[in-house]
C-alpha cells in the first residue's frame, strides 16, 4: 500500500490504482471533516438556533405556515417562506399596507393591544428599563393550565430568537417554548408571576416579526379552529364552531386527546 510496505512496486498499476484509492478516501474523509467543521462553526457563531428553527419550520404542516397577512385578511392565501421572520420578508411592506379584513369578535381568549405576539404562543412586552418581558399567551395558558415543572435558562445565558427559551412539562409531555426574540436572560418568573423571562436584547431589537393589531384575533381564531379539529373525537363528523369560550386547563379536562400532536402544533415543534 505504501512504498515502505513489503511487496510495493513502483509500477504504473500500483501508482494509478493506489492514487485513485487515496483520492477517494481523501474525498470521503474531507467531506466528513467539512461537515463537522461547518457544524462546529454554526454552533460557535450562534447560527445553530436559527438553522434548527428553519429546519423545524420546514417540517411544519402547510396549514401551520400561513402568512400573517392571510390571518389578518389582507390576502386570501399565502404560505410563509421566511420561517415567520418578517424582518427578512421582501413583501412585508407591500402586504402590510393593505387593509386588514378580520371581523372584530370575541375569539374565545383574551388578548391585549399592548402586547406583541409570537406564533409560538408567547407575548413580548417592552419594559421601561430596556428589558423585554416574555410570557405565555392566554391560549397557551388555557391549553396547559398550570405546568408541572418549568426549566429556565440560567441568568445571563443567551437565548436566540425562535430558539428554545424554556421547557415545561405537563402530564408527562415535554413542552419546548420558543423565544420570540433573542437576548440575554436577566431574570426568570413563572406561571404565578404572569411572565416567564425578562431578557435584554443585544442592541435595538427589530420586532417586525411579532403579531399585533388585527393580526392577533385572526391568528387566534385560526388557532382555536385548529384546536377544535384536533380535539374532535376520532371518527366524529366535522362541525362548525360557533363561538363560546375556551375552557381553562384543557390538558387536564381532556386527558385522552392527542396532546403530543396538539402541543407540537401549538408551540411550533415538529
Amino acid at each position: 500500500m505504501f512504498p515502505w510496505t513489503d511487496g510495493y512496486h513502483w509500477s504504473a498499476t500500483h501508482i494509478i490504482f493506489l492514487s485513485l484509492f487515496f483520492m477517494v478516501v481523501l474525498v470521503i474523509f474531507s467531506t466528513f471533516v467539512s461537515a463537522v467543521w461547518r457544524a462546529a462553526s454554526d454552533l460557535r457563531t450562534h447560527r445553530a438556533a436559527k438553522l434548527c428553527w428553519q429546519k423545524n419550520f420546514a417540517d411544519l404542516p402547510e396549514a401551520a405556515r400561513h402568512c400573517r397577512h392571510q390571518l389578518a385578511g389582507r390576502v386570501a392565501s399565502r404560505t410563509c417562506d421566511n420561517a415567520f421572520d418578517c424582518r427578512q420578508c421582501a413583501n412585508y411592506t407591500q402586504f402590510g399596507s393593505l387593509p386588514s379584513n378580520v371581523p372584530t369578535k370575541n375569539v374565545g381568549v383574551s388578548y391585549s393591544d399592548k402586547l406583541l405576539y409570537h406564533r409560538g404562543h408567547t407575548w413580548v412586552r417592552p419594559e421601561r428599563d430596556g428589558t423585554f418581558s416574555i410570557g405565555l399567551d392566554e391560549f397557551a395558558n388555557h391549553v396547559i393550565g398550570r405546568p408541572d415543572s418549568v426549566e429556565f435558562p440560567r441568568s445571563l445565558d443567551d437565548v436566540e430568537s425562535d430558539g428554545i427559551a424554556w421547557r415545561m412539562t405537563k402530564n408527562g409531555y415535554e413542552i419546548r417554548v420558543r423565544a420570540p426574540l433573542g437576548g440575554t436572560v436577566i431574570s426568570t418568573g413563572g406561571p404565578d408571576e404572569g411572565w416567564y423571562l425578562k431578557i435584554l436584547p443585544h442592541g435595538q431589537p427589530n420586532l417586525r416579526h411579532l403579531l399585533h393589531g388585527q393580526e392577533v384575533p385572526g391568528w387566534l381564531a385560526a388557532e382555536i379552529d385548529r384546536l377544535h379539529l384536533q380535539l374532535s373525537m376520532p371518527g366524529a363528523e366535522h362541525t362548525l364552531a360557533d363561538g363560546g369560550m375556551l375552557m381553562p386547563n384543557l390538558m387536564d379536562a381532556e386527558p385522552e386527546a392527542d396532546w403530543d400532536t396538539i402541543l407540537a402544533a401549538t408551540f411550533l415543534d415538529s
Partner: protein
Amino acid sequence: MSETLLFDRRWIARGAERASTLRFLLWLFPWMLLLLLGIYAAGLCFYYGLNQTNMDNRFAFGMWIFLDLAIIAMGAGAFFTGFLVYILKQKDLKPVLNSAVVVGLTCYSGAIAVLMVDVGQPLRAWFTFWYPNTHSMLTEVTFCISCYLLVLILEYIPVVLRNRQLRKIPSFLVFEHQLHKLVPVLAGVGAFLSFFHQGSLGGLYGVLRGRPFVYRQGFGIWPSTFFLFILSAVAVGPSFLILVTAAAEKVTGRQLVQPTVFRKLGFISGVLLAVYVAAKAVDTYVWLNITSPSVGFGPSDYYSYWPMSSTFLFAATVPLGLLPALLLILPYTARRRGWLLTGAALACAGVLLNRFVFTVQTLALPTLPFDEFLRYTPSWQEVATFGGVIAYGVIVYSLSYRYLPLFEAAKGVDKNVSLD
C-alpha cells in the same frame, strides 16, 4: 394506535402511524432468532475454521460468494437512486432515497460481514489493504466496497439524526444539515466506486482463462463481463427497491410512495434491463461461437449436465430477462401494480440466476478431460449464515422504518433552509 400500546412513541416521528410496540417486537422475534442462529454458525466458522462449510479447494466459491454477488447487485439501487436524484436531478425519486440508502447499507455491510467469515482468516483481512495485489480484480472489489460502505454510512447518518429525539439536540440537527448538504458529493463518489466494483465483480470471472465457461474477451483490461455486471446491477437495483418498498407497504398496510414513483423506477429498470439483455445476447453469441471454440469448448461442454442445462441460459435471457423488461416498460403492464411487481420480481430473479450461474455453475463444470461435474450442497452453517444476513437486513430496515423518516414526501424540506 392507542398511546398506551406505543411504549416507544417518543422515538417515533410525530403523526406517523406505527404498529404497537408488542406487535413490532413479535415481528422482530423470528428474525432475531434467525440472526442469532447466523451469528452462532459464523462463530463456529471462526472457531473451527472453514471445515464447517462444504466448500473445498475445488469448490472454493459457494453460497456465500453467491450471496455477496447477489446482494451487492440488489444494493445497487442505493448508488443508482442517489445518482439519479443528486446528479441527474430526478427529484421525483427523492421519496425513496432514504429507503434506498438503508437497503444499500444493509446489503453492503451484510456482504462484507459474510466475506469476513468466508476469508477464513478474518484477523488477516486487513492484508488485502496493506499488501494489495493491484493486478487482481478482487483487490479493486475489496477497496471499492470498503470505501462505498463508508459512503453509505455517511449517507445514513443524516437519516438517523432526523429521528424525533435526536433532532432535538441542536448539534446533531446542525451536523445533519451540513452533512446532508454534502450528500451530492457522496452520491458522486458512490457512483464512481459502484461502477468499478460492480464491474470488477464481473471482471473477476471474465479474466479466468482456465474457466472457458466464463472467460470473455473485452476492451482493454476489462472483459465484457465487467460491463455486463454493471449494466445488470443498475438494471436490477431499482427493481429491488420496488420490491422492498412494496413488501414494506404490504407488511405495514400503508401506502408509502406514490404509484408514479414505482412506475418511474420500473421504467428505468426495464429500459436498462432491455439494454442488458441485448448486450448479453451479443456477448453470448460471441462467446459460444468465437471465444469458447477457440479454446476447444463447445456449448455441449457446458449445457449437458442436469440440472444446469441450457434451460438456465434460456431462463436468464427470456422469462427472467426480456419478459420483465417488457412488463416494466409497456404502459399497459407498468400501470398495473401486479404486473409491475411481477416484472420487478422476475428481473431480480434473473440477476440472481445470473450470479448463481457465474459462481456455482462455473466451478461445477469440468475443465480438464479427467474432471467430473462437481456437486456442492452448502452446509447448515453456510445456510444459517446466509439466513443471518437476510435477518440482519430485515431487522435494520424494520427499525429504520419505525424510527426514521424513510419515506419522506418530496416537499422540499431543505430548500428553504440556508444561512448562506
